[in-house]
C-alpha cells in the first residue's frame, strides 16, 4: 500500500486501512496481518481466536473490557489498539418494533460468536442517545442521568451528535474492527471464518463512521496530517500529545461507573467528544519542561517526575501522591501554570476516586489530529464535573493563568463535537425500552 511516493510501514498501513474501511481496507489488512510481523511489531498474525460460543462466558456488562484486555507491567489495562465508531439512526419513526429488536440482538450475538470477547478478538458496546429515547411516550427511567449533549465551557462551541445509537468496536487487530462493521451491516458472507447470517442492515442507517487508534508507536507513524509537526511525536507515545494516560490509579473502575439501580442496573453512560489537537506550538515552541508542567503539574516538571512518555510513572500519574491537586490555586499564583492532570485530580467522587473511565483514542479522521474522547461514568453529571475541573474557571484569573493560557492543555485542544449515550446492560443492548 502506498501513499503518494512513499511506502507505508506495516503499522501505518493497518491504521490507514481502518480509516479507509470497506472491502479495500479489509483486504489490505488481512493481507498484511497474514505476513510475518516486523521486528518489534505488535500486530498479530492471522491466527485469530474463534468466537465465544457459550453465553455464560460473556459478562453481563457491555463495558466489562478490562479483564478481557492485556495488562502492562504496572497492572494498567492496555486499551485495544484499533477502534471504529458507528453512529446510526433507527429507520422507523416511533417505538422500535419487536422484530427489529430481535434482529439486532441476533446480529450482536452473532458478532460475539464470531470473535472472542477479548482485545485480541473483538470488544464492542452499543449505546443509545437521548434522541433515541424520545421516540417513546414514556420518559427514560429517572435512575439514568442522560441529558442532551451541551457545550461545557464558555469557550467551546461544539456540534452535537444525535444519532439514535453508537456502536463502538475495539480490537488489537485492525482487520477485526473493519470486518465486524461489514458483518454487522451484511456486507460480508463470512467473517473470521464463520458464515454471516444475522445483520442490523435494514433496521438502521449509518450516519457517520469514525476511526482511531491508541498505543505505543501509532501516533508517531501518523504524524503526516494537519495539527502535528512531522517527526515531533515521540516514537513510543501512545497518543499525539506525547504522554501516556489511563493510569490505573487515575481511572474509575468498571464497578464504580456501573449504574447501581433501576431498569438499567449493570449499564453505564458514555460520553463521546471529538477534540481536535493543534500541536505546532506544543512541539515546536514549548519546551519539554513546559509540556510536563501543562500536562501534569509544575511540580512534575521541577522534580522531573516524568521520563519519556511516562512509563516510569507506573500505575499512577502521581497527582494524588504529590499533593498537587490541593495546590491548584497556589500554583496558578506562584508558578503561573496549572497542569491538566492536576486540575482533573480535583474531580474525584466522595470516596476520593476518579469519576471517569477513559477509553479515548487518537484519530486522524479528515486528515487532522485529534482525540475521540470516549469516557464511561455512572451519570453524565460525573463527566460534566470532571470537565468543569479541566476548564479551570476558578484559576482563569489567578496569577499567571488565563482562560486557556497556562491553564493545562486548553490552548491546544478544541472541542468539536459532543454526544451522550446510555450503555444498557448486555441483556438490554438491543433497542431498549425507556424503563
Amino acid at each position: 500500500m502506498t501513499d503518494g511516493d512513499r511506502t507505508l510501514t506495516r503499522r501505518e498501513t493497518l491504521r490507514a486501512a481502518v480509516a479507509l474501511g470497506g472491502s479495500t481496507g479489509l483486504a489490505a489488512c488481512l493481507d498484511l496481518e497474514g505476513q510475518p510481523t516486523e521486528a518489534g511489531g505488535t500486530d498479530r498474525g492471522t491466527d485469530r481466536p474463534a468466537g465465544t460460543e457459550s453465553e455464560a462466558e460473556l459478562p453481563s456488562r457491555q463495558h466489562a473490557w478490562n479483564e478481557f484486555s492485556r495488562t502492562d507491567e504496572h497492572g494498567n489495562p492496555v486499551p485495544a489498539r484499533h477502534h471504529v465508531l458507528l453512529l446510526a439512526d433507527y429507520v422507523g419513526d416511533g417505538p422500535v418494533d419487536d422484530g427489529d429488536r430481535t434482529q439486532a440482538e441476533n446480529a450482536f450475538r452473532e458478532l460475539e460468536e464470531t470473535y472472542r470477547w477479548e482485545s485480541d478478538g473483538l470488544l464492542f458496546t452499543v449505546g443509545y442517545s437521548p434522541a433515541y429515547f424520545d421516540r417513546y411516550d414514556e420518559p427514560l427511567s429517572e435512575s439514568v442521568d442522560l441529558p442532551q449533549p451541551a457545550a461545557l465551557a464558555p469557550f467551546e462551541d461544539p456540534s452535537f451528535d444525535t444519532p439514535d445509537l453508537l456502536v463502538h468496536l475495539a480490537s488489537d487487530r485492525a482487520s477485526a474492527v473493519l470486518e465486524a462493521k461489514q458483518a454487522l451491516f451484511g456486507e460480508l458472507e463470512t467473517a473470521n471464518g464463520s458464515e454471516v447470517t444475522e445483520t442490523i442492515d435494514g433496521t438502521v442507517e449509518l450516519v457517520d463512521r469514525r476511526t482511531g487508534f491508541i498505543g505505543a508507536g501509532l501516533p508517531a507513524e501518523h504524524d503526516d496530517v494537519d495539527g502535528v509537526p512531522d517527526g515531533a511525536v515521540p516514537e513510543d507515545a501512545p497518543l499525539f500529545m506525547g504522554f501516556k494516560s489511563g493510569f490505573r490509579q487515575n481511572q474509575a473502575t468498571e464497578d464504580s461507573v456501573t449504574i447501581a439501580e433501576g431498569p438499567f442496573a449493570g449499564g453505564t453512560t458514555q460520553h463521546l467528544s471529538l477534540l481536535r489537537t493543534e500541536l505546532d506550538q506544543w512541539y515546536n515552541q514549548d519546551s519539554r519542561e513546559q509540556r510536563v508542567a501543562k500536562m501534569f503539574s509544575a511540580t512534575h516538571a521541577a522534580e522531573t517526575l516524568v521520563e519519556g512518555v511516562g512509563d516510569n510513572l507506573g500505575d499512577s500519574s502521581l497527582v494524588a501522591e504529590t499533593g498537587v491537586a490541593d495546590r491548584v490555586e497556589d500554583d496558578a499564583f506562584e508558578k503561573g501554570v496549572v497542569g491538566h492532570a492536576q486540575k482533573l485530580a480535583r474531580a474525584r467522587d466522595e470516596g476520593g476516586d476518579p469519576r471517569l473511565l477513559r477509553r479515548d483514542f487518537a484519530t486522524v479522521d479528515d486528515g487532522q489530529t485529534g482525540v475521540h474522547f470516549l469516557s464511561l461514568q455512572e451519570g453524565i453529571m460525573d463527566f460534566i464535573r470532571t470537565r468543569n475541573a479541566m476548564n479551570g474557571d476558578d484559576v482563569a484569573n489567578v496569577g499567571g493563568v488565563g482562560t486557556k493560557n497556562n491553564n493545562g492543555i486548553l490552548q491546544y485542544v478544541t472541542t468539536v463535537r459532543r454526544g451522550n449515550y446510555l450503555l444498557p446492560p448486555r441483556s438490554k443492548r438491543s433497542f431498549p425500552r425507556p424503563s
Partner: protein
Amino acid sequence: MSPRRNPTRRDFIATSGVALGVSVAGCATGDDAADETPSEAAPGGTESTPEGTEQGRGNELPTASAQERPLVHIPAHQDGMRMVGMEEVGPYMVAMSYTLLHDFWILTGKEKIYVQIEDGQGLHLMATVWDPEYNQRIPLGSPPVEVRAAESGDSVTKKSLWPMLSQQMGPHFGDNVAFPEEGEYTVQLSFDPVSARQLGEYRGRFTDAVDAEFDLLFRTDITNNIRERFVDEAGQAGALEPMETDMQPDGRLADAASLPGEHGGIVESGAAEFVVQVLRRAPAGIDSSGPYLAVSARTPYNQYPLPFMGLRATVANAGEEVREPLKAAVHPELGYHYGAPFPAIAMGDEVTLSVGAPPQVARHRGYQTAFLEFDDTTLTLGDGT
C-alpha cells in the same frame, strides 16, 4: 511490502533536521528578505547561538553581554508593520497586522524558551484588541486563529496566538505563521470572554465569545518592503517608542496623575513600575463598598500593562496586617491593573507588594530579560513618590 522497514518521511526529517534547521540570527528572514538583512543583527552578538541545532533550539544561551545589558533595553532594530484590517466586533475593536518573522521568548512560570525563526517564508501575525469607548487595550488570553487559503479554503494553520509584549506594539497577541505560497488568505480570530474582573463601566461588557475575520494578501514583494531600521542605541537602557498610528491607541496606560483615586506612590521591582492607587469606594463589580487598592503594573518608558502576573499586597497599619492576592481587572480609567478591596486601608499605611508568577506574556527583544525576578517592595501610602 518488504519486511525491511522503508524509511518514512519522519525518518528523513529526523536525520536531516540539523542541516535543515540553520536559520538567520536577528529578526528578519524569509527567502528574499534575508538577502537584505545582515545576519548578525543582534547587539554584542547575542542570540548568535547555534540556534539551528537541536542543542541550541529552544534554549536561550546567555552571553556575557546579555548579562551586562539593562533588563529593559533598546533592541538592535526597529521594524515596520502592515495593517491588514480593522473590525469592530462585539465590544471590541480588533486590528490585524503583520511584520517580518520575529524571534521571541515564551514563558511558563519562570521557564523561558527562545522561539527562533523557522526556515521558510512567513509573517509574524499580530492582533491588537481594545475598547473603542475608553481606548483601553483588553487582555484576552490566547485567542485561537485560523489562516485559510482564500480560494481553496484549505487550512494553513490553526493555533492560539500568544499574549505578547513588544516595545513598538505594546500588548498584543501574536505568533509566526508560515505561508506556503503567495496569494490571498483569510484570517479568522476568536476571542474568549475576558477572564480578568470587569469593573466600573466595564462590568459585564466582555463576557461573550466573538469572532473577527480579515482578508490577508501574502506577497513577498510587500513583505520585503517592510522597513527596518538598525538602531544605534541598541543594548542601552530604554525602549523603542510605541508605533504611532492614527487608528488605534498605542497601548500606554494613563500616567499616575491621571488615574482615579488617591495616589499612594510608585515602587519599582524587576524593572517594572508599580503605581499604587487607593479608591475610596470599590468600583462596581467588586463585592465591597469599602476602599479598593489598585496596582498598575507597567513597563518602564512605554508604560505598557504587565498582565498575567501573581501579585499580592500586605497592608500594615499599627501592627495590624492584612494580606490579600490582587486580582487582575480591567476598568475604563485604571485600565488593566491588579486590585482587591481592603476595608481599612488609608494613606499612611505600609503596603508591601510581592510577586508570585512573573507576567506570563511572551516577550519580544528588549524585554526578554526583564520582569522575571522580583523582590518584595514596600511603600508608605502617600509618602513622597
